[in-house]
């Protein structure tokens, strides 16, 4: 069993300094503490228990290899950290050790205009890459809420979800291949067969997907080749208001069957969400009172395609009871989609007073027919805990996003947003949070969903349900982990994978 490492010896510090340079090694607590959390609910009362022993910022694959070999030599846990924006805790150290901050590795290594690929280091954001690709008329269409801040390496390790997946898929569909430093220090190239610019191969096991969602437990990715798209000519967001969730839900069912190839995104806002936006989101553009539920859509593609598709979409929406909410709301709200996933100061206590709360989001993958039941169960669960702790939790409503890449139908990333007064958390309320989270996940498994469609499932409240969700796959996961990481140094403690070593 790997042990928690809260300090490292002067010798190890010196070795690390030699590998990455003095200025890229941090030992002071404030540098370590700021890399101790992700934006998922965090137990503030035990912040220091998640502090790494040391932080290093490498710049090359060779440096990463040296760090991993050193960690192996001394059995020191390693936690790779990308943007640290994940709504899971993959980048949170559970056993201290060496935190490898990958954001210095943010270079573009190649843009291949003809084969439409880019090769990058893992610390680059999609936004940063697109700022450069813009000059070539090309586009890397990975579009999470954290578009400007999450990094490509982290997107692989969390198996990232993209908001416009209807036209361009998710991160797993956009990454062709990558180089990874395995937990033993061995460098491995992983892709479709052996071709560096090949999107689909039938040669051998397809190992690429093994590393999607690994949460840093299987190695450190150091170089990535991604697929590029032509920059779309047209982008048309269109929001429609409905008189009830039920009406919007039925409309969602109809939209699934239009089969528009340009329909990038479909998002259903439930009644609690619209109420929350009216109440406390300054960026929200007020709507008529009879708007109780919303379906947001976005079309991406060539002008001729989007023009034709929009006519059909508007017709179907109107026939389903939807009322177009106008350009101001549609374009404004869509444009701010990357800015609105953290808004403090918007919570309300049980008496309606504004109090400091942070936005937290629980997600699952749920198929269409189960959505109303899940909505009911999740709101009930939050209400139960809010009634008991009115200063700690608040229900900020639910979203349902198309989840099926390239085909916006079938199943949905289902999200409930919960205000959490994290600043005042203590042992009791932290445990209440974990229990609430577990009730949410249990409801998901009850209907045959997946605990997470977007964020990952390594946190307390999720992680103990992994064996239940994965069944036999969980047993294989443990064998793979032990095979690749014999000393359990790579992000130990995640996914309950310590069990592989017992």
């Amino acid at each position, binding site marked *: 069993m790997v042990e928690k490492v809260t300090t490292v010896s002067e010798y190890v510090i010196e070795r690390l300094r030699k590998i990455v340079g003095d200025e890229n090694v941090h030992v*002071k607590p*404030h540098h370590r503490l*700021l890399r101790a959390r992700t934006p998922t609910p*965090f137990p503030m009362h035990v912040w220091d228990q998640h502090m790494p022993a040391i932080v290093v910022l490498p710049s090359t694959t060779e440096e990463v290899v040296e760090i991993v070999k050193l960690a192996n030599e001394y059995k020191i846990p390693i936690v790779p950290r990308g943007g640290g924006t994940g709504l899971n805790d993959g980048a949170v150290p559970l056993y201290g050790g060496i935190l490898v*901050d990958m954001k*210095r590795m943010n270079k573009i290594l190649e843009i291949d205009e003809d084969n439409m690929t880019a090769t990058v280091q893992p610390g680059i954001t999609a936004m940063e890459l697109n*700022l450069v690709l813009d000059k070539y008329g090309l586009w890397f269409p990975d579009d999470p809420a954290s578009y400007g801040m999450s990094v490509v390496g982290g997107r692989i390790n969390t198996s990232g979800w993209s908001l416009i997946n209807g036209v361009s898929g998710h991160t797993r569909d956009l990454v062709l291949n990558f180089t990874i430093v395995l937990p033993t220090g061995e460098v491995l190239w992983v892709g479709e067969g052996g071709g560096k610019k090949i999107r689909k191969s039938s040669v051998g096991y397809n190992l690429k997907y093994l590393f999607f969602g690994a949460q840093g437990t299987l190695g450190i990715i150091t170089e990535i080749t991604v697929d590029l798209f032509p920059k779309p000519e047209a982008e048309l967001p269109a929001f429609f208001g409905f008189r009830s969730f039920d009406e919007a839900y039925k409309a969602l069912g109809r939209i699934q069957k239009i089969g528009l190839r340009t329909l990038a995104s479909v998002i259903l806002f439930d009644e609690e969400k619209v109420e929350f936006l009216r109440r406390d989101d300054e960026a929200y553009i007020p709507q008529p009172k009879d708007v109780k539920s919303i379906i947001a859509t976005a079309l991406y593609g060539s002008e001729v395609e989007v023009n034709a598709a929009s006519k059909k979409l508007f017709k179907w929406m109107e026939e389903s009871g939807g009322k177009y909410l106008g350009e101001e709301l549609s374009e404004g709200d869509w444009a701010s989609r990357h800015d609105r996933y953290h808004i403090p*100061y918007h919570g309300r206590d049980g008496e309606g007073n504004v109090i400091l709360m942070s936005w937290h989001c629980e997600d699952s993958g749920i198929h269409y027919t189960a959505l109303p039941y899940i909505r009911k169960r999740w709101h009930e669960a939050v209400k139960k805990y809010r009634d008991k702790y009115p200063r700690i939790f608040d229900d900020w409503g639910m979203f349902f996003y198309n989840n099926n890449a390239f085909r916006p139908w079938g199943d949905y990333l289902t999200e409930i947003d919960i205000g959490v007064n994290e600043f005042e958390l203590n042992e009791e309320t932290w445990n209440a949070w974990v229990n609430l989270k577990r009730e949410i996940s249990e409801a998901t498994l009850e209907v045959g969903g997946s605990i997470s469609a977007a964020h990952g499932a390594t946190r307390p409240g999720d992680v103990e349900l992994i064996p239940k969700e994965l069944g036999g796959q969980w047993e294989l996961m443990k064998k793979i982990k032990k095979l690749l990481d014999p000393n359990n140094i790579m992000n130990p403690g995640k996914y309950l994978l310590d069990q592989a070593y017992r």
Partner: protein
Amino acid sequence: MTQFISIKKHIKEAKWEGIARDCYNQFACSHKMCRTYDPVVLATGDESYSAYGFHTSVLAVTRGLAKLEDLLDSFTFCLECASCEIRCPNTLFSGDFYRYTTTTIDLVRFVRRQLYEKGLKPRNWEKVEASLSRLETVKKEELIQWSRDLKVKRDVPSETVLLIDTFTATQLSSIARDITEILNKLGIDFTVIEPDAPLQQEYLSFNVELFKKNARNLVDKAVKLGAKTALIINPHLLTLLAREYIKYNEEKLPFEQVFFTDYLWELYKKGILKFTKEINLRAAYHDPCNLSKLNGIFDSPRKLLKSIPGIKYVEEHQVLQWRYCCGFGNYIFKNINQDVSLRIGRTRVENAIDLGADALVVACPHCMDQFTEVIRTFNLNIQILHLTELILKAMG
């Protein structure tokens, strides 16, 4: 001026409980947009030096998990450029409603003052003191030397005063001379004021009383001459008067402060300022942090530049330039972190070169000084020109 100027009592009055809540708002942040727009983080890849890093570090201190003393060197890595403040979703979405904005610069200065009061000085502090000392020991005759052969009025009452800061007067006097010639050619009645003692933003990091005293003296001097409009050519001085004076001296300025580009653009629109001479140049414009990010002035310099006949203007949008900085910041950043400072400047200049610009035009003496050093250090092939020089030439 549309920027928010948050005056947070807890920072001003060193109330740690309020500071902790303020810092928590960054610590809990899912976005970390500050990181993506911060020139220092872009240059180093190290989020320790982002708004997120600074606020989290202080929060750790309030919780007893880190020592204030440990922050000493880290807190020199703030350019005071404000990109993190204006790009922060807290500012964007809470600013209107709650008048609550992210105020990283105030927090960083507060921490620096706390450390200084404990007698702690960061590495290379002697270099900061040396630069400030150079300005503080300037003699009156040196201060006015820049205008020796120009027609200027001093100590004569006028509704318009031209404020020439100590740095511009003594180290980049061509800018002071050019603006004076422009105003004289336009027949503007103005009087020149140089401060008796330099008004430096660095003081806000270790000696607020000195800032207040020197600011008070400068303002009094202008008021005595009957100033209704203070014409400013250094964006750093504009920030100090337009934003910091109200915070620290706790009163509004008794006159209007106008940056020279806004002033000249108004005259151009009225047909008073005319450009008669062609200047054939492919020019990009650099938004000085203190002008664009801190004071919301980005339009008038562009309009003036584009109005000069012969100029082929290459646009770099002002929002994209939130990520840019010349790398100077102030003497604390520049003198302590020389290497990072030059790297930031190099990136910015190379962006202009990539656009095919022959010249990078600036409207700030410190940007001018920094970029001049950058192109010399890295042997970059581009001209660095101040807008006043081009305007004066174009006037014929």
